């Protein structure tokens, strides 16, 4: 019985908790990805 989510609130708690974690990871990895993407540009100035 524990396996089933019975309320919308619990479902949202579950999904939103995961979404918040993914948001944090994606926000940080965007920085790394941008550096990777532009590393070989002629001007390495990312400022």
């Amino acid at each position, binding site marked *: 019985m524990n396996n089933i989510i019975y309320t919308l*609130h619990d479902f*949202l*708690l579950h999904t*939103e*908790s995961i979404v*918040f974690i993914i948001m944090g990871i994606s*926000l940080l990895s965007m920085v790394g990805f941008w550096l990777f993407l532009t590393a070989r540009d002629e001007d390495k100035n*990312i*400022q």
Partner: protein
Amino acid sequence: MSEDAAVDRKSIMTPFNICAGIIVIAGLIVTFIRFTQGLGAATNLSEYNPWGIWIGFDLLVGVALAAGGYVTSAAVYLFGMKRFHSAVRPAILTGFLGYLFVVVALHYDLGRPWRLPYPFIFGYGTTSMLFEVGLCVALYLTVLFLEFSTAPMEWLGYKRTRNLVHRLTLVLTIFGVVLSTLHQSSLGALFLIAPSKLHPLWYSPYLPTYFFVSSIIAGLSMVIFEGTLAHRAFHHKMDEAHKAEHNPLTLGFGKAASLVLAGYFSIKVIGIAAGNHWHLLATGYGFWFLVELMGFIALPCLLYAMGVREQNLKLIRFTAAWTVLGIIINRLNVSIIAFNWQLPSSERYFPHWMEFTISIFIVTLIVLAYRFIVTRMPILYEHPEYKDSH
């Protein structure tokens, strides 16, 4: 008493300082009452009205008016308006102080303020819009602190750290815009959960969008407004670049504010149509809604446009103050005036004098902190050692 001391006393005893001193003393007394006798002694909050002006003004208005930081840094660093570079530091400073004191003010309103970090340690109430607001405000305050920190580092001479932080400018700016978008809109979304309590003219599924768009307007107008005040008080502290860029900045931001106001006006009208609330415009609340819509959105939009077309800086400055007033009215409408509109007047909320005292106290603290910082740190001028380093 020696003559020197007399002169010193005279220079300290300015009317401004006397007023500020009285407010600070009153604020400290009320602070003591609030934290020793509870919210009941210092506020008119009730079961029906759990949020008063400490949320409606200190939090909602405070955050909206502190939007100048992200608006200006985005304009300069992301949208390439380098010619307004001198405006970034003052805007970041007021943004930082605004958010800092929003958090300070929040301690007055919370029942157990020392538990403020609980949502991120034990709680994880991720379905709550307040969780979203809290998380973004906490992160954005950190971002603003880092953005601002270059000024005290230049002042104190921490050259290496300063340059390290300076290299993060772009990343911090983008994070700042993302976080601001989220928490500005989430402040509006706070009220989405209470459709039965907020008047339908203000309640809309678009509330988050309204709050976000109006925060841009608030940010632009506050930069103009603060700039005007700063020019009166701290003209001697400004370098040539700051002075030279001020008028073009007023024109440029005035133009932007006019444009955003036009968009804001149209989405507000669309909101009435989407909810089919036209008939409510003929009621008392409808009249008040129209005052806000026409008097504080349409009117400043036109006044800004006229000011920009005629290069009338005086008109733009007046409109900026008017728009700021409009934002204050909007936030108070949503959180207090049009909230619980169905309750009989005996159950409605009007702030206690101590609530006003604390709100004024907080604003005074912001002004004092601003003055302390701009008279010492390179805010309104560039530090000679760090010129052309951006």
